[in-house]
């Protein structure tokens, strides 16, 4: 499939994230088609849709983990469409995963430190010989990581192994790790999955603080529609890889197309 003409539109550097005509197909199977997004800074943007609608594919494309078949992604006017995933992260798009992906056998603190360390580079020699400069740098990385763990409410279990945490804590640790990257855009994939109602309520507050206190722009994918409705400034609905609705929560909530996408069409008797 040739790139759609839309991809050649000049990027607008005033937008934080600009996605044009993004698409992915696997051997003829369309996972996502002609997806576009103009994301303004400090918004919380929701993406919902039934199972298999292409939400996770969208995140994989935005985070550089899957190569798009069509379209382009610009972050603050910089083309990141074909960069490696780790470069995309370094430039400011961090993410969490639907099936939590922590560094299981590392400590809670190290899970965050591994993301925070990039902002404090040091030399190989100083590390191997454990020089004073090295030790001071390590101290700063640890302090920054502990700060972020406090933010998500895990400040009291920094030394535990990540895999020993309960499920809800693992989700929050994953968010802390993503924030440690220092992202401009944070992609949250099903952050409330598997949480009980009180954990989900806390999460709600946390996401607001990420935006309010840290100024991070958030894209949220969730099946938990109440959470999305409650948090988001704007919501897009995907079905069969195609955008079927785009607007504020109140509009999307009553869109008949959205309801039938979820519950299925009523059968005609």
């Amino acid at each position, binding site marked *: 499939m040739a790139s759609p003409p839309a991809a050649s539109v000049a990027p607008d550097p005033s937008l934080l994230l600009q996605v044009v005509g993004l698409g992915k197909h*696997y051997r003829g199977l369309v996972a996502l088609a002609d997806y576009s997004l103009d994301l303004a800074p400090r918004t919380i943007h929701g993406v919902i849709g039934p199972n298999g609608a292409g939400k996770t594919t969208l995140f*994989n494309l935005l985070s550089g*983990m*899957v*190569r798009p078949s069509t379209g382009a992604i610009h972050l603050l006017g910089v083309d990141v469409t074909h960069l490696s995933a780790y470069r995309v992260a370094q430039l400011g798009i961090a993410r969490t*995963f639907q099936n939590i*992906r922590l560094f299981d056998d590392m400590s809670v603190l190290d899970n965050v430190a591994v993301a925070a360390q990039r902002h404090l580079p040091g030399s190989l020699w100083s590390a191997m010989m454990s020089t004073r400069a090295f030790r001071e740098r390590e101290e700063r990385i640890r302090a920054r990581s502990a700060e972020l763990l406090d933010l998500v409410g895990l400040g009291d279990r920094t030394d535990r192994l990540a895999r020993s945490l309960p499920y809800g804590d693992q989700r929050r640790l994953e968010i802390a790790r993503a924030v440690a990257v220092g992202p401009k855009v944070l992609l949250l994939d099903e952050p409330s999955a598997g949480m009980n109602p009180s954990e989900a309520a806390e999460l709600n507050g946390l996401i607001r603080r990420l935006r309010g206190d840290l100024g991070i722009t958030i894209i949220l994918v969730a099946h938990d529609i109440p959470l999305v409705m409650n948090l988001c400034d704007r919501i897009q609905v995907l079905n069969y890889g195609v955008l079927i609705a785009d607007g504020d929560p109140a509009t999307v909530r009553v869109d008949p197309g959205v309801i039938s996408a979820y519950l299925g069409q009523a059968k005609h008797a």
Partner: protein
Amino acid sequence: MGDYFIQQVVNAVSAGSLYALMAVGLALIFSILRLINFAHGDIMMVAAYLVTFALFAGMPLPAALVFMVVGAVVIGLLMERIAYRPIRGAAEVAMLLTSFAVGQILQNGTLLVSRLAGEPVQIAFPAPDIVNGVVAFGAITVPKVNIVSLVTGAVLLTLLTVFVTRTRLGLSMHAAAEDLPAARLMGIRVNRVVATAFAISSGLAAVAGFLYASQAGQINPYLGFTPVLKAFIAAVIGGFGSLSGAVVGAYALGILEVIPTALSGIADILPPGAVPPGVHDLLTQVFPSSLGSYRDAFVFVFLILMLLFRPNGIVGGGGREEVP
């Protein structure tokens, strides 16, 4: 000159048949368990010893061959039951290392038994007449063992194809290789399928071991290492996990291996005056007569290139993209 090349082609094809017998066994196990069974070469080695001792004991050849195949199958089944089943589904490197250890046990065990039987480490292989000597076709002489390899390879691979495509057990094997959970939902007994795969693989290894030993003329407990590497390369070239790929890869490897040998010292083989002296010197420099001894290095460089640029082999299509 023409004879020289025909000779090389015959060498390539018969080597390919031998590699095919080994590579198919390796690919069969890999396709179901994701295990690269490095002990496969040691099964070949054990089989060569079994037939040797059977012949030393005065068994007639057919009986000795049956003894060899049955023995190899039993050892293959034991190996699966004792070493591989407990770690089924473990990390692929853990499985690979286990297979190395199994190989070490087979090597050292064979050494031990052979010593106890009063034999030296290196034994002259009592190759029977059917694989001993050469057949001449005009100016071309072909070792008998090459012809036997070709025929045996063709027959066994055909039988295997029939088994895998026409019997329910064969189809079950295919199903387990393609989608293990779905195969279980059909009610397929996975343990039985895996055991069958090991039995077939070991039986093929036994035959390959016999042919390999006949070609080498000598056996020792360490002879399995090189052939299993070759079989692995063949399987990678063809596309690991696919039986037809393994066969294609095996013949490709046979041809590939002949190239450095065929080209080494090519300048001296050319009839005098066939090429201008400048070209002759160039050929001597680019393809020195020592080139043949770098054959294994050449093959491995090729393997690494294959793994990098075409990990699905020449038969496999574009692999599925890995997604988080």
